[in-house]
């Protein structure tokens, strides 16, 4: 069952990982995006994520469903944090289980790429040197 969630509280990786466990799965790949202390050469002091929740949850669920059609996987899940995050906090988590490692890695990477390009979530950065901005990157400047 695809599981995509927008979360206002800290992401509980241990609990999510348990969701994907099963004796039939031989491989599990996961990705975590953490709040960095720098972005594009500027020191980041604080960071807020905002989402259009209804659409974000629908789009996230669609991405997970599509991952199941594209890759030979068993389970896939993704949680994205919103609200104000501290440096070093977990912003997004993706986990995929599969019989073999190839599809687990491929699907995990595809999901995070799609989430970053399609799901209506926006990052707002406050800089140590002063200033702040919403990030609205062009597709080619997503720093993958």
């Amino acid at each position, binding site marked *: 069952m695809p599981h995509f969630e927008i979360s206002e509280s800290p992401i509980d990786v241990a609990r999510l990982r348990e969701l994907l466990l099963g004796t039939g799965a031989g491989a599990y790949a996961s990705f975590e995006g953490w709040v960095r202390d720098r972005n594009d050469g500027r020191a980041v002091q604080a960071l807020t994520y905002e989402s259009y929740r209804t659409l974000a949850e629908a789009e996230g669920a669609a991405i997970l469903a599509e991952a199941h059609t594209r890759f030979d996987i068993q389970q896939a899940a993704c949680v994205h944090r919103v609200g104000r995050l501290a440096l070093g906090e977990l912003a997004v988590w993706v986990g995929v289980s599969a019989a073999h490692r190839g599809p687990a890695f491929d699907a995990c990477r595809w999901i995070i790429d799609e*989430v970053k390009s399609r799901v209506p979530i926006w990052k707002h950065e406050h800089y140590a040197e002063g200033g702040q901005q919403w990030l609205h990157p062009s597709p080619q400047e997503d720093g993958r």
Partner: protein
Amino acid sequence: MSVTVLYFASLRDAAGVDSEVLDLPASLAGLYESLRARHGFALGREKLRVAVDGAFANWTDPVADGAEIAFIPPVSGG
């Protein structure tokens, strides 16, 4: 005959409100252009997507009375 427009991220900062209720517009594209002129949105329409009632839509889709419309600036999750 009205619609509700939702604003997010830099659009909300520029509009100064989360949402507003407006008269039913003739088109989604025309609505964005008029709001861009009024609120001074920096982003051109070609950089945005539009959503109606919680689902992505096309700029040429007709607009129904009571629709909830959101303009989606380039996303930056992850």
